[in-house]
């Protein structure tokens, strides 16, 4: 009984708080002043016809740098986890040999997946998609190879090099913007170009290409960690 009373009071408090919160805002009026600003000025200020990209890479470029770091942390966490688990793992060898269609099909489709992922992140400032999406697509190509050919291994040194160089490009571009007079970190210092042209929007495409490489390398590393837990380390002990 007491519990029910406590619950009722708790519920009433939440409802009251919500009502008071929403009562402060007039109904039916546009409250998205920031979004409105981006919509009205985004194309003119950044030169990117994809508004989402102009927000993600230009207005909130610093935030995106943080996101990329979070992804790096996640990839490192996965690697550490599997490195520790490798000590007392179970033997897993009951993997059926991949089907003919998977084997031959993944070989044929792999170059096209790489091309499509590259297409997505090169056109990040023009069409939906960008570095994160393109990078994920490229990593999925590697996943397909791992599934079709259990012996596949992507060189971790090469992945680290790609990842490091891509991250460095991002940060150095940002720092260069900081050095120019009257500017800020990740200042878009290159000419905006013509709208909808491939070479437009200043540094945005360069940053998105760097992000694409970085995300692809990180996800490929995660795929390598996870698939090797199943396959590569199964034999050695």
């Amino acid at each position, binding site marked *: 009984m007491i519990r029910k009373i406590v619950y009722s009071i708790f519920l009433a408090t939440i409802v009251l708080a919500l009502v008071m919160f929403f009562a402060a805002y007039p109904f039916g009026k546009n409250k998205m002043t920031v979004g409105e600003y981006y919509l009205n000025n985004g194309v003119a200020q950044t030169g990117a016809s994809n508004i989402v990209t102009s927000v993600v890479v230009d207005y909130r470029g610093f935030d995106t740098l943080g996101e990329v770091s979070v992804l790096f942390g996640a990839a490192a966490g996965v690697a550490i986890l599997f490195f520790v688990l490798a000590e007392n793992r179970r033997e897993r060898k009951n993997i059926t040999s991949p089907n*003919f*269609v998977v084997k031959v*099909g993944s070989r*044929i489709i792999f170059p096209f997946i790489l*091309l*499509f992922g*590259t*297409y997505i992140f090169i056109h990040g400032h023009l069409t939906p998609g960008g570095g994160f999406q393109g990078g994920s697509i490229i990593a999925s190509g590697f996943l397909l*190879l791992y599934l079709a050919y259990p012996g596949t291994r992507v060189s971790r040194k090469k992945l680290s090099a790609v990842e490091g160089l891509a991250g460095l490009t991002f940060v150095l571009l940002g720092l260069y913007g900081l050095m120019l007079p009257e500017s800020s970190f990740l200042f878009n210092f290159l000419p905006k170009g013509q709208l909808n042209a*491939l070479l437009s929007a200043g540094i945005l495409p360069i940053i998105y290409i760097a992000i694409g490489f970085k995300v692809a390398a990180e996800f490929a590393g995660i795929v390598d960690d996870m698939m090797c837990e199943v396959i590569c380390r199964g034999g050695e002990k």
Partner: protein
Amino acid sequence: MEKAGKLNKYIFTVVVLYVSWILLTATTRADELIVGLIVSLLVAIGSFDYLSEHGLSHLTPKRVLYLIIYAPYYLWQVILANFDVAYRVLAPSMPIKPGIVKVKTNLKTDSGKLALANSITMTPGTLTMDVKDDTLLVHWIYVKDETVEGATKEIGTPFEKYLKEIFG
């Protein structure tokens, strides 16, 4: 088809990727064409060994012509099979007789067998379950003929007469 050398395979991959890029971007603007060529050249470095063992010998005019003819022909086959399966679904007597049959193929290359297997799978009513050497295991919604020869004639031959020219 004989196996091709590295440079041959690389050029073949670049050509195929570049054509795909042009189809993807659907434009002939100079900037897209130049960037597409650079991307194709770079992507092919990492992936030319995967695409095909036979390289440029895929691109004889006859093979390309047959590939272009095959697309509408295959679409027509799919439409026919769609009506057949729709009839089997809607008819109150439920005229299905599902089963697994063996289909023999004369295609020699892996890519040819894959094209045949996928053509069969994407046609409603038939589904390739596995490929072993020159035999395909196909699940069929209405087994008209249980023998290997009969099933091959019903399922494989309509596609194979074109695929034989495209993939050898």
